[in-house]
Structure formats: structure tokens, C-alpha cells
């Protein structure tokens, strides 16, 4: 009985392993079927991809043109590749794209009048928050405890020591 069970278990394990193996292999096979661009120059390709990760795809907006499968992203990657191949610098390629699509293509927006708040806003908020906290702490430190008359102090002491409260308690 037990041997049979063991056999079954090991068979199931084998099957599971086989399935995992297939699952791992299949995507690789599929990927191989897709038209991967012929990389003549790995150095150039690395530069293209490096810059592409910094550029936003305007169709999907939350993906870079390196990751996006939108046709426009493909076209823009080709543009970047072509211009690099033509010997243009990264700055020139960025300027080319910004002139056409605006600063929005850049994941890191430039520092200028319209983006000042974007860049220094978080810092300002931090400073404002820290300042407010400091102010509050100072005020609290300056405030002494509630001002008590001698009679009240004596009563408080008596209460703390467990003595029965006197008749003055009625007014509360």
C-alpha cells in the first residue's frame, strides 16, 4: 500500500517537474520566434536601450520606450538607434525628441520655471513640516504644567496619597 502511494507521489512530482520545465522552455521558444532586431553592434544597442529606458512612451505613458510594445515606441527606438549610429550624442538625441514631443518624453524633467515646484516641492514640504514640528515642540517646552494654587496642590497630593477627597470636589 505504502509503496504504491510513494510511487504515485514520485510520479506526481515528476509530472510537476516536467510541467515546470515545459513552462520554462516554452516562452524561450516563443521569444525565439519573434523578430528580434539584428544586433550588429552590441555597444550601440546598449546605448540605445540605456537611453530608451529614460524616455516615456507617449502612447502608454507609464512605460518607457524600451519596454513598450507600441508601434510608436518601436519607431522611436529606431530613431534613437539611427541617430546614435549617425554619430549624434545622447544630448542631441534627447533634444531631437524633446523638440517634437516636449519634456513629457523625459522621465527626469528638466529644471526650469515650470518645474521648479516639482523639483523643490518635496524639500519645501519637508522643511515646512520640520519647522512646524520644531515650533510645536518649542511651544510645548515653554508651556509649564497647569498653574495650581497651593490649596489645589495640597489637594492633589492628598488625592495621590489616597486620602479621601474633601467637600470641594462638588463643583466639578
Amino acid at each position, binding site marked *: 500500500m505504502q509503496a504504491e502511494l510513494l510511487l504515485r507521489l514520485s510520479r506526481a512530482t515528476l509530472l510537476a517537474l516536467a510541467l515546470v520545465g515545459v513552462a520554462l522552455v516554452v516562452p524561450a521558444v516563443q521569444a525565439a520566434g519573434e523578430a528580434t532586431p539584428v544586433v550588429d553592434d552590441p555597444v550601440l544597442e546598449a546605448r540605445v536601450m540605456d537611453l530608451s529606458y529614460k524616455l516615456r512612451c507617449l502612447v502608454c505613458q507609464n512605460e518607457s520606450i524600451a519596454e513598450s510594445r507600441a508601434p510608436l515606441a518601436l519607431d522611436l527606438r529606431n530613431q534613437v538607434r539611427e541617430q546614435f549610429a549617425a554619430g549624434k550624442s545622447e544630448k542631441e538625441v534627447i533634444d531631437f525628441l*524633446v*523638440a*517634437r514631443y516636449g519634456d513629457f518624453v523625459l522621465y527626469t524633467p528638466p529644471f526650469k520655471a515650470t518645474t521648479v515646484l516639482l523639483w523643490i516641492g518635496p524639500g519645501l514640504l519637508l522643511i515646512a513640516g520640520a519647522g512646524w514640528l520644531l515650533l510645536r515642540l518649542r511651544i510645548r517646552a515653554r508651556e509649564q504644567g497647569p498653574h495650581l494654587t497651593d490649596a489645589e496642590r495640597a489637594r492633589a497630593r492628598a488625592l495621590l496619597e489616597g486620602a479621601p477627597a474633601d467637600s470641594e470636589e462638588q463643583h466639578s
Partner: protein
Amino acid sequence: MKAKFLVPLVLFLALAGFLGYGLTLNPSVVPSPLVDKPAPDFRLAKLETPEEQFGIADMRGQVWLLNVWASWCVSCRQEHPILVELNRGGVIPVIGLNYKDERKDALGYLRDHGNPYVVTVADPDGRVGIDYGVYGTPETFLIDREGVIRYKHIGPITRDTVKNVLLPRIAELSRAG
């Protein structure tokens, strides 16, 4: 300060106001840096007669629209009747930029839906599209007599757009100069 308890309420209302305003914005509309810049030059083959070429210079001295379209573009179909109407009214010449399309499909589309374009040029690989910062069809550029882009409309043109946005601008540009 007695009204201190109102501070969080006021902050909340301010935040809600900002978020509410944000809801009215369309994130897919990205302002174009090309507005008020000279329209990028191109020289492309005409769609109907590929042996002829057409360029920006051919429109100098006229106020015109450049409409980027494609037969595969669904929202282009939505604005197409309005372009046909615009053409029939003779308000403004519309030049079509057939973006990343097959010639056969584009011609079939114009045959089936009517041709609102004075001239259509073909941009099969989308290069001129990139020069114009096109990221989604349809897009429409209003270009003045000096060849400067004065307005860019992203997405399908509606009757409302024509009446409230395009016509006043066209009238103004036609008056000037």
C-alpha cells in the same frame, strides 16, 4: 484661535478641490512644444498620385489644417464626417497626412467614406509623424500663412471643436496679415 478645528476641514477641501480638478483633465493630451513654431518641413509623395510630391511650401500664404489619419485608426472614422463637412463648406483647406498606412487601405477608406482632403500625402514609415510629434491618430494642426503651427488638436474633431475652437482661430488667422 477658536476655529482651529476647521483647519483639517479646510485642508481636506483644498485637496479635494485639486483632485476634483485633476479628474477633469485628460492625461492623454500632452501639450505640443511645436505650437507657435514653424511646421516641420516635409516633401512626401501624394497618396493618389505617388509620382507627384507635396510639401509645406505649397501651402504658403494659406491658413490650412494638417490632419493626421490612417485607415486602421478607429477614432479617425469618428471625425471623418466632420472633415467632409468642413471641406464641403470650403472654410479651410485640409491636407491629409496618411500615417503608417497601406496605400491600398488608405485609398479604399477615402473611397468608402468620402475624401475631405485637398491633398493627401503618404507617410508610410511615420517619419514625418515623428517630426510632428504625432503619438496617436487623429491629430490636427492648424497652420498659418507663414507656415507656423498655431494650434494642435489631439483626438477626433467634434462639431463642438470646429465651432468653438477651430473656426474662431481660423477667422482670426485669416484676418491677420
